[in-house]
């Protein structure tokens, strides 16, 4: 009888558990003392742990910047490694507060998942990688090839669209995890491997002989990658959104990790607004006056983060391209802080 009543009590508790108040994410995080951030299972340049377990990457920098504005400590982040399959359920269930996992911004994801995208960290596109020995120069020569892809991603759908619209046949080999996909491609099970172009460069580094593989020139889709938060908490949405915008604005104004202290003493009205000397923009977000200073001291501006993780200062060596600032030939554009 005791066991029955215990089980009954548990069932009642589960059935009646009130929806955790969604409008209080910031308060929950402050009480917890850490930001719970969902990241990938190891994508160089975006979110990858090193051999000591420290996470680095452009997505990781966004999480650290958010932790810095709340706690003034970029290490107060709990990283939750997620596969493509369970990333959205982790966000929906509340296990993580912020999903920064190179996720493509699409309409169906913005609506049916109960989550919002806060911006674009990286403008990407899908491409193909083949072995040089196949002597293929274009994705249009891949008729009746076998293509390895990670299951449950927009990649699979774009792949199907591309081959259908070009009237080509193909064999799709879909795996649950990125590592298995790459391993199958390397073992020769498939002729081509497809994912976002940044991912292709990143995974090529992990292969035994990176020089044996070539990335084909075609970009077959738009993949704007950005962070996601749950529906229902506008304040949290604004915070994450403006953290990324602040990083881009800072690069536009020329504020870097090294000169931020110096710039804070400047007389220029724009710099005074952004760095908190004038106005109360930090408080309007629910943060502190020096919120941008905290971000810059933690991870630097957008350009510095890009260079360090995926650009010239990293093994990936990807050019800024579309991700350059709007006035430097790219499309990264942030609204002004005023």
């Amino acid at each position, binding site marked *: 009888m005791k066991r029955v009543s215990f089980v009954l009590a548990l069932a009642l508790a589960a059935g009646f558990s009130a929806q955790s108040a969604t409008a209080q994410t910031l308060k929950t995080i402050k009480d917890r003392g850490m930001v719970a951030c969902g990241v990938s299972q190891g994508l160089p340049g975006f979110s990858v742990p090193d051999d000591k377990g420290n996470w680095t990457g452009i997505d990781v920098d966004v999480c650290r910047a958010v932790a810095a504005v709340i706690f003034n400590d970029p290490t107060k982040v709990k990283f939750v490694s997620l596969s493509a399959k369970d990333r959205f359920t982790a966000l929906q269930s509340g296990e993580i507060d912020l999903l920064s996992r190179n996720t493509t911004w699409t309409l169906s994801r913005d609506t049916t998942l109960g989550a919002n995208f806060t911006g674009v960290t990286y403008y990407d596109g899908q491409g193909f990688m083949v072995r040089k020995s196949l002597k293929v120069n274009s994705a249009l020569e891949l008729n009746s090839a076998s293509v390895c892809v990670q299951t449950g991603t927009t990649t699979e759908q774009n792949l199907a669209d591309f081959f259908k619209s070009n009237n080509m046949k193909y064999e799709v*080999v879909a795996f649950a995890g990125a590592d298995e996909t790459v391993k199958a491609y390397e073992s020769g*099970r498939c002729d081509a491997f497809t994912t976002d172009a940044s991912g292709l460069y990143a995974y090529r580094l992990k292969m035994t002989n990176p020089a044996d593989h070539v990335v084909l020139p075609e970009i077959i889709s738009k993949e704007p990658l950005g962070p996601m938060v749950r529906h229902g908490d506008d304040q949290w949405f604004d915070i994450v959104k403006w953290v990324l915008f602040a990083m881009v604005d800072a690069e536009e104004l020329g504020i870097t990790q090294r000169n931020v202290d110096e710039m804070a003493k400047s007389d220029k009205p724009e710099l005074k607004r952004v760095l908190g000397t004038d106005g109360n923009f930090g408080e309007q977000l629910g943060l502190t006056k020096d919120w941008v200073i905290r971000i810059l001291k933690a991870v630097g501006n957008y350009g510095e983060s890009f260079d360090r993780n995926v650009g010239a200062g990293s093994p990936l060596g990807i050019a800024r391209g579309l991700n350059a600032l709007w006035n430097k030939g790219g499309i990264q554009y942030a609204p002004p802080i005023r």
Partner: protein
Amino acid sequence: MTTGPRPPPRQLVAKLRRALGGGAGWNGFFLQVLFVVLLAWIAYEVVANVRSNLETQRIAAGFGFLANNAGFDVNQSLIPYSQSDTYARVFVVGLLNTLLVAIIGIFFATVIGFLVALGRLSPNWLLARISGGYVELLRNIPLLFQILFWYLAVLGALPPPRQSISLLGTIFLSNRGLVVPTPVPQAGSEAVGIALLVAIAASLLLRFYARRQLFQSGRLITIWPYVVAMLIGLPLIAALIFGAPVSFEIPQLKGFNFAGGSRIIPELVALTLALSTYTGSFIAEVVRSGILAVHTGQMEAGSSLGLTRGATLRLIVVPQAMRVILPPLTNQYLNLTKNSSLAVAIGYPDLVSVFAGTSLNQTGQAIEIIGITMGVYLLISLVTSAIMSFYNWRIGRSMGA
């Protein structure tokens, strides 16, 4: 005064009370009603809570997504499928792939299990030790590693399609799979098909007649020569009269892969191998325990009648052992079906991989999809155990138990 036995009082109320409440009477009845109401209310509250939570978070709910366009392709599909089909069709494709692996796996696992069990009980010392080693080795390694082993180690060793191993120039083995010629039905196919069915029906009738003769008059008729003659001869005669039933479409290497022919993908082969050998080791132990459960006197009685060891096993011991073997054997079949969901690790498009994997990720409706998948696995398992129960009943009936 005539005093015969009077009929007992009707006592309708008392009988009703007994029927509704059992030994506890009316109290028991009301308690049961209360309990059912409580359970129903809890279930209603849980469902309503889930629905309102989903709505507050504006996560899509309901089963309408099944009519939406899937937008992705599947490697192996037993029915025609293209990317413009719906998620409902994806579900059917995944289900058929799972059933295919389950049926092939169950067949081979049973064969392997029986052989290994008999090997382990054999008086041949080497055979017994090897069978024992097989069981101990495969039982104790997690299935996921075995699947990965077969996929990576075995398939990794196969050559790429441009250097594939070919048999007779028509069958090709490469790391893309085994490509065999497809039979294309021709003019004579219907006639040959009908002839084959007639031959099978005639064989079954012959078997029925031979068994009756055996049990009624003790006459032993060997029917297998007639059966073989009919199964081969009748279709052959039909083919000679009406023309060849099939012509074959030979696969040819074109570009990256083979065009024409049917392909058995390496994922299916690796998964079936791993599942059959793994479950076979468990079935071997089940069969061995069943055979050991039969009294040793039966084996001695058989050999005292002059039967060989093989005949005694086949005719006397194993039929009695089946009563003990069938329930745990059902367990192993259900385990095999559920273990096939590990296919997602090697890219075989089974139900979990395409439906509870890709479709779930693309629609985001976790609760509905997982619910459907759980329901389907439950249904498959219930059907399997129903079939095995029926077989168990038939064995029990023929044993006179």
